[in-house]
């Protein structure tokens, strides 16, 4: 299938280009960047040197329509909503990496993003791009809204427990830690090395935007409302997310029962791994281990002291948290093995 990437100069766009260039079912025809139009894409993404001579081009809808069947849109939140409808009207399929089509309720855009949605009719149509929850709907949609990175790690950690109805739904606390690439490629004083290096910055202790999509998706599992408490920290790594999720059990569970809940929910999922190992250095999920891969590692520990269950999930924010997930959705659309083009098992040590 002929594919294009709009917004190809950022970290998510660069990761999409990397994955699509080696994807056996994708022919990358177009990489759009207004800022870098005319330049080789390896000039911006040096890891792609020697893999392609493609150059960035400006946004030109007739050309995109002519050269693509499906387009990945990796534009900033609030910008995507102006481009995606035009691509759909041109008959293209779209995988949007921004937040612009993730939420079903238009009012949530005012509440969480501070702007009024201009194309609310598309929100109902868009499918939330988390294959573990929406595989069937993804197959035939023309618009996929890829989840947020921390939302992905949180939802995948919590979904089995919500589905099993074993946790108190008003006491769910997510402590998320993310590497600096989560802030995007545009520098700011907050990302300046001297300020950022060596620190742990609680940049959004309350009110993080991903709460909206986490609650939306977990509500859908049982059609009962759930309240998420979420705090985000940026830590001293480039890639990776670790979420430490604290939930309280309705009644005590054994280790075996928690294992059973997780295994039965995720049976045969190609990118879910369980990590609760009794020996060695990596006994619970650690983002370091999943870097460069599309895996989501999930582990847990029971705390009998207060009937608490601690769930841990680790992903690479640019892979399962963004571009890898987008390509996994692309594979669902194509009807091929979801691991196609995503076989990388990550590095060790990093």
């Amino acid at each position, binding site marked *: 299938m002929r594919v294009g990437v709009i917004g190809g100069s950022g970290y998510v766009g660069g990761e999409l280009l990397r994955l699509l260039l080696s994807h056996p079912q994708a022919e990358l025809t177009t990489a759009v960047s207004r800022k870098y139009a005319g330049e080789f894409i390896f000039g911006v993404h040096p890891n792609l040197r020697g893999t392609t001579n493609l150059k960035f081009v400006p946004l030109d809808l007739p050309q995109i329509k002519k050269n693509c069947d499906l387009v990945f849109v990796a534009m900033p939140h609030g910008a995507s909503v102006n481009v995606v409808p035009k691509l759909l009207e041109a008959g293209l399929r779209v995988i949007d990496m921004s937040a612009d089509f993730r939420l079903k309720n238009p009012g949530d855009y005012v509440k969480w993003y501070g702007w009024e949605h201009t194309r609310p009719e598309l929100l109902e149509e868009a499918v939330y791009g988390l294959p573990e929850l929406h595989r069937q709907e993804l197959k035939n949609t023309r618009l996929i809204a890829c989840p947020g990175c921390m939302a992905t790690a949180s939802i995948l950690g919590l979904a089995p427990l919500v589905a099993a109805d074993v946790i108190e739904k008003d006491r769910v606390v997510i402590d998320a830690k993310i590497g600096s690439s989560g802030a995007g490629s545009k520098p700011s004083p907050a990302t300046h090395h001297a300020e950022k290096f060596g620190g742990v910055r609680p940049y959004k202790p309350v009110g993080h935007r991903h709460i909206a999509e986490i609650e939306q998706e977990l509500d859908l599992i049982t059609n009962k409302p759930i309240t998420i408490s979420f705090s985000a920290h940026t830590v001293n790594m480039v890639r990776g997310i670790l979420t430490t999720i604290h939930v309280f059990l309705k009644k005590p569970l054994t*280790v*075996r029962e928690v*294992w*059973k809940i997780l295994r039965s929910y995720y049976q045969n999922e190609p990118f879910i791994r*369980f990590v*609760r*190992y*009794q*020996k*060695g250095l990596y*006994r619970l999920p650690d983002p370091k281990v999943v870097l460069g891969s599309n895996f989501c590692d999930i582990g847990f520990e029971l705390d009998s002291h207060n009937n608490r269950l601690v769930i841990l999930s680790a992903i690479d924010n640019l892979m399962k948290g963004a571009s890898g997930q987008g390509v996994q959705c692309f594979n669902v659309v194509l009807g091929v093995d979801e691991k196609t083009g995503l076989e990388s098992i990550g590095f060790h040590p990093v």
Partner: protein
Amino acid sequence: MEKALCPDCDAELKVPNGVVTGEILTCLSCGLELEVSQINKDCMELRELVIEGEDWGE
């Protein structure tokens, strides 16, 4: 090859043919080390191998 369940995580363990009492098996799912404590005609008893744990500064 016989099958048994891990007493901790409930994963299925593949037990090699000819296993003997005292042999150590490892659960592939959770890494628990299990000692074959008893073998009867139709069942096998496994118990957790107790090893010294590490103290990470607690």
